């Protein structure tokens, strides 16, 4: 590599940036773990952190504690963790690939397909929860494929992809509106609840699938991090650097979409998580920001939102209501930190 030719002060700067990135990412991981344990401690029955860890890792057997921790509190906590990682990772891939901070999967229509399929499963086919989750996954994948095919013309430009994604999203949303307006009262409520999204309802099947997906895909994503950086320099530069532009782009979009699909299947379309995680992680880690950090920030957002939704509000609300509310201060923070120049939009 050409790094050996770089002057010493550049190398020093690079090392410093890498150190900061590693430090911040480790700190984020610690925060995620703390929130994960905290989620299983609090509730109508307090469990000490030591007991939680012992119970989850099967170090001790205590029927009461085990029932509360393993059966009642671990599934939603694990869902929140995995969904957060999936959405954070997918969101940052979309934003960097399409070169637009507002191009998260929920804005570009992937989630709308998951919603349409799931809502139709609830309202038209009266499906059970596993079938609804499966429909959401299929919906996300099909919609993403549709957007990709429609946006393909001698390659993909971010701008065209986003516009077409919005068109597809409008299409899906109008059908959702129609299906909702034709539904029975009770079922409409059920569908609305699904549309808001919550980590508390995923069955073991969905949860297992999601965790497997995250464990398989995140290493893949880490391998794709370098080619992604090349793509961010522009297609011509990336080609000159030896990256195979279209295959890399397709692979990255593919893994991001699979993550979004599994997350939607487990928890519904949680608003804003995918939008927020990437930029916040980048701000924390500095210019050497990593996809892993974005995934961790996503997990912090979902775990935190779930804690608020469960324990800090007058009524117990679905997680999605809280992630939506978090969206507002985040965007206002973005407003406050917008650079003075070159942000013409």
């Amino acid at each position: 590599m050409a790094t050996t030719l770089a002057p010493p002060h550049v190398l020093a700067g690079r090392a410093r940036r890498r150190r900061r990135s590693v430090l911040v990412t480790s700190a984020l991981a610690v925060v995620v773990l703390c929130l994960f344990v905290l989620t299983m401690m609090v509730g109508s029955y307090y469990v000490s952190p030591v007991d939680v860890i012992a119970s989850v890792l099967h170090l001790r057997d205590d029927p009461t504690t085990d029932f509360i921790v393993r059966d009642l509190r671990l599934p939603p906590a694990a869902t929140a963790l995995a969904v957060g990682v999936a959405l954070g990772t997918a969101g940052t891939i979309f934003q960097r690939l399409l070169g637009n901070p507002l191009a998260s999967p929920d804005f570009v229509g992937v989630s709308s397909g998951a919603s349409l399929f799931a809502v139709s499963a609830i309202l038209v086919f009266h499906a059970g929860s596993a079938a609804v989750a499966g429909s959401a996954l299929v919906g996300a994948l099909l919609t993403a494929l549709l957007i990709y095919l429609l946006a393909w013309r001698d390659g993909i430009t971010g701008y065209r992809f986003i516009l077409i994604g919005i068109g597809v999203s409008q299409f899906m949303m109008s059908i959702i509106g129609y299906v909702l307006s034709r539904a029975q009262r009770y079922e409409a409520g059920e569908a609305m609840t699904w549309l808001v999204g919550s980590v508390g309802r995923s069955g073991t099947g969905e949860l297992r699938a999601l965790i497997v997906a995250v464990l398989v895909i995140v290493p893949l994503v880490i391998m794709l991090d370098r080619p992604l950086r090349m793509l961010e320099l522009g297609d011509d530069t990336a080609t000159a650097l030896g990256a195979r532009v279209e295959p890399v782009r397709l692979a990255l979009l593919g893994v991001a979409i699979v993550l979004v699909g599994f997350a939607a299947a487990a928890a519904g379309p949680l608003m804003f998580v995918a939008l927020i995680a990437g930029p916040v992680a980048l701000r924390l880690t500095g210019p050497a920001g990593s996809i892993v950090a974005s995934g961790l920030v996503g997990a912090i957002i979902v775990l935190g939102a779930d804690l608020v939704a469960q324990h800090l509000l007058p009524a117990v609300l679905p997680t999605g209501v809280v992630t939506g509310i978090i969206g507002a201060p985040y965007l206002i923070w973005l407003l406050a930190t917008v650079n003075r120049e070159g942000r013409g939009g």
Partner: protein
Amino acid sequence: MSVTAGPRASIEQRPQQRSRAALVTGLVILLGALVVVCFFSITMGARGVGPGTIWKAFSDYDPSAASETVIREMRVPRTLIGLFAGAALGLSGTILQGLTRNPLADPGIMGINAGAAAAIVFSIMVLGAQSPGTYVWFAFAGAGIATVAVYGIASFGREGATPVKLALAGAAVTAMLTSVTNAIVLNNESALNELRFWQVGSLAGRYFPVFWQTLPFLVIGIVVALGAGRALNGLALGEDLAHALGQRVRLTRIVMFVTVAVLCGAATAACGPVVFVGLVVPHMARMICGPDYRWILAYALVLTPIILLIADIAGRVIVSPGELQVGVVLGVIGAPVFILLVRYRSITEL
């Protein structure tokens, strides 16, 4: 962080400014088309009527004749609302895109729909369920408060409400209001029930009272909007250049924004959140006439009601004797059209 795509996407070519004669001819043809569409909007539906009946309904009204009542009490107000609300949505979409220099700006992004929905749900929660006739004022107030909040948040800082800050503030307010609305409807069944019918934009069931309530706002907004072309052309050159040319940028922005709020608020109050036309028609108009906003506004004024009314008629014809709401038709038919346009024509960056 620019809200549009980065420089990589700027390979798209800009359309050329067309000749004046061609543009005038096009506009006349569109106006003719609008008249034809209005005529069909009054005659077509579950109960077909002929021109003779329309004439009789207004010259020599016989309240006992069902077809005449349908025309006077339902089809005519419906067509008028479609005409004015369509014009309002097209113009406000054009102005928003020019003002925020964001090709994806539409009434939805400014928090207007979310504000109206939140106000309606809130009114049901506090006052109990009511009829859509009383929603109008709540929807209007909600839309107004939301836009004021958006502009206020965007104005913080040294530069005032720049394009990017407006878009972000709109998204922020929308996020907040949508979450609050969701929290309410998930705990209040009658609010959920009303919201899910209102959420799909529709021209049906809107009678003359709703029309007269919103008309003054629509007319004032449309008049001001039509005069905005020169100012938008200035803004399109960039703020600094507009300043140098003697334009009062901040004042322009505030006037435009108030106009958009009035137009969208009234249109949303009259027919619910009609998505899509406000976003897409400005792009279509830009493809036809090139970059001059004076022409784009004129074309948007005529083109949007044509599209809205055609969608409304299609909704009546497709599933006759029932109907599909205009919002559904626009999404299902309009979205593919928009996608084709994006695919096969270059949509310019602003």
